[in-house]
């Protein structure tokens, strides 16, 4: 060591290093503190090309921004002004900030609306594979073959519902005899109008015209519909006693449901197939969640 520095060693060097260490520590603490208390510490310096903005590192997708802007102003993005774009982006940033704040405030843990939305979103996510699935024709055909009853056309009927209304003054035996006579006359070719006049019947739903089976069932009730369904074109039913009186059905035209060919029913088959697959996925997801969860129940509720 040079004689000129002898005696200085051990004094100057530690002093500088202490200053440097202190300076470094202050910078470090300041940076960490800034990052910690402003949530900007890990901010990216560049917005990725697929994003419109980053809010505390969370992306706002450009696609969502464009969709929002175009639907708000009903114009393509090219025709939307800078000020309008800014309005939309500000609104989306505002939303993102509030969503993040909502998470900090534990809204998913406390707010019913947020919880409902989360449940719906998770359920949708669980069945995403089913909704994006494109089953082959053979798979759908197999499903169709196994569930043919669901793919029939809706039957139609045109039927006249004649009623001999219940009357306390009229003995039941007389009413039954009158109805039987009316049935005989109708089956012999008497016109319904003539039969109504002669046997004191009235028509419950005149000029109803042709209706689908489901509608006929609603209008006539289960019992009369089941009878009507079995009648051929031009047939007359037996007299049917119900609380409101005695009914006689004259079938004008009855078109029974027929199985639709697979190609015609394909859309419905696909919808049913996906619905069933989604239900299976939902059940599996629920089973998985229950399986890995630790659920403790209060003794009083066990």
């Amino acid at each position, binding site marked *: 060591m040079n004689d000129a520095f002898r005696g200085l060693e051990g004094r100057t060097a530690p002093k500088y290093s202490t200053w440097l260490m202190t300076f470094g520590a202050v910078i470090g603490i300041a940076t960490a503190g800034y990052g910690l208390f402003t949530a900007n510490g890990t901010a990216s310096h560049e917005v990725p*090309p697929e994003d419109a903005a980053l809010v505390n590192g969370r992306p706002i997708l450009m*696609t969502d921004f464009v969709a929002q802007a175009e639907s708000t102003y009903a114009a393509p*993005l090219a025709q939307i002004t800078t000020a309008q774009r800014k309005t939309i982006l500000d609104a989306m940033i505002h939303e993102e900030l509030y969503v993040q704040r909502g998470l900090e405030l534990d809204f998913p843990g406390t707010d019913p609306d947020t919880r409902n939305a989360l449940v719906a979103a998770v359920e949708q996510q669980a069945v*995403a594979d089913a*909704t994006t699935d494109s089953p082959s024709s053979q798979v759908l055909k197999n499903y169709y073959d196994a569930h043919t009853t669901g793919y029939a056309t809706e039957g139609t009927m045109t039927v006249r519902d004649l009623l001999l209304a219940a009357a306390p003054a009229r003995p039941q035996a007389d009413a039954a005899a009158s109805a039987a006579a009316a049935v005989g006359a109708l089956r012999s070719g008497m016109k319904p109008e003539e039969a109504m006049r002669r046997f004191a019947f009235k028509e419950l739903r005149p000029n109803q015209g*042709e209706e689908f089976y489901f509608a006929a069932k609603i209008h006539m009730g289960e019992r009369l519909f089941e009878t009507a369904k079995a009648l051929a074109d031009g047939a007359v039913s037996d007299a049917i006693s119900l609380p409101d009186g005695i009914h006689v059905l004259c079938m004008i035209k009855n078109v029974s449901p027929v199985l639709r060919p697979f190609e015609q029913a394909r859309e419905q088959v696909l919808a049913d197939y996906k619905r069933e697959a989604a239900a299976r996925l939902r059940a599996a997801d629920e089973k998985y969640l229950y399986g890995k969860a630790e659920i403790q129940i209060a003794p009083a509720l066990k």
Partner: protein
Amino acid sequence: MALAVVAVGLPAWGAYVVRQHVMITRLLRTDADQVPGNEALSRFAQAEGRPLYDKYCSSCHGANLAGDSARGIPNLTDDDWLYGSGQVSEIERVILYGIRAGNGNGWNLASMPAYASAVPYGRLAVDPLSPGDIRDTVEYLRTLEHKPADAVAARRGEEIFSGRGACYDCHAADGHGDTAIGAPNLTDDIWLYGDGSRQSVFESIARGHEGSCPAWTHRLSAWQARSVAVYVRGAVRWARNTP
């Protein structure tokens, strides 16, 4: 020899990766609707979009993008758009979020009621129609397309269309449809389902429709979805310029 391959291959591979990165960034930075007007970007996106279309979309829309009216799969080459007007950004949105695919960002607003059922539409109170009502409505729709129709039945059908059938609510009072909710134009003789015959239109009204398109947002990245959208948009132009 190996060294020579590495010496040539590595820079070439590096150049390819850099070019891909640059093009992808440019593709995403450019307004989606402006991409078709940019020759280089459009060519790049179409080249990237085609294999993705083949992989994810062609099983329904067909390799030639022509769809299948027997299954209600839209033709993507006819420039007749159910949703929007065929802008790349609109196609991209359908690709990402789908139609009735259970994604909140997708198109889920309405579907065609099944009028031959006790409850034609679950979301809104709509009365069922009788077979005669449906036949009358079919006649009215034929008049919108200037096809031969029973005039008396068509007048009754018009009342149903604009009244208790509530058809006007989606298809608009003039039957031109509404691309904001995917309600088809009923005046242009382009049929999403069937061939436009009386029987096929009757079936559509009677049984309803609820077609869907998957949401690919979890399978395709942003640039891939845009590439497919540009490819589909390009197919319209290609089809238009092909005799």
